[in-house]
């Protein structure tokens, strides 16, 4: 089991009712972690819509992560 810091933004933050939490997980990829947390962010499939960052660097959904990492889940952006 790994322990990671998860941060939720915008719609995800509102749905989760929190901006961040510490999560214990056996997920190996960021996609697995995202799916395990569907009860928080409410989204079944992030592909093409949502983005993920690992320790303040944009990441791929299939990327692994390590104990102690910080994972940021971004719903579709809309700047400007």
């Amino acid at each position: 089991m790994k322990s990671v810091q998860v941060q939720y933004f915008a719609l995800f933050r509102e749905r989760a009712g929190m901006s961040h939490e510490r999560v214990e997980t056996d997920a190996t990829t960021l996609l697995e972690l995202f799916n395990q947390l569907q009860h928080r962010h409410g989204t079944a499939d992030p592909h093409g819509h949502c983005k993920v960052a690992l320790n303040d660097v944009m990441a791929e959904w299939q990327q692994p992560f390590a104990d102690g990492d910080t994972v940021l889940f971004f719903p579709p952006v809309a700047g400007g």
Partner: protein
Amino acid sequence: MPADLNLLPRMAITAEAIDVASLREQLFDHAAGAFVSFEGWVRNENEGKSVTRLAYEVYRPLALSIGEQIIDQTLQHVGARAALAVHREGELELGGCAVWVGVVSKHRDEAFRATRQIIDRIKVELPIWKKEFYADGDSGWVNCERCAAHGHSHAELINPV
């Protein structure tokens, strides 16, 4: 292209009104013959709904680093001399300036192309989210333009939470 102007950082996020006159002056450059600027203003209508105000949520660390990278890549790719960009966070009223991009170049084609590329990328690559508040009391997070362009259905996401 020479980089005579020492403008770093070139991407900023601010909770205050954007001072367009000051930004323009920072780009003054006797070797530049063209200056193009873009501003995004809070419009009173979106997709048929009457908008009264809006709020931006920004994840600053990545918005700043990605914005800097976009400006850097665009200046090199297009061959413009210098650029600055600022995005608001927090609440804005109708008519407020949500984002400003300015580019100077020797000739005008480069300034037009660089300004367009920078704003196009800011809108889809920076971790910034827009929540619109409507005249009927509803509110909702606006989806990214790229998704809209691809014709995805985002019914679950544009509903007010």
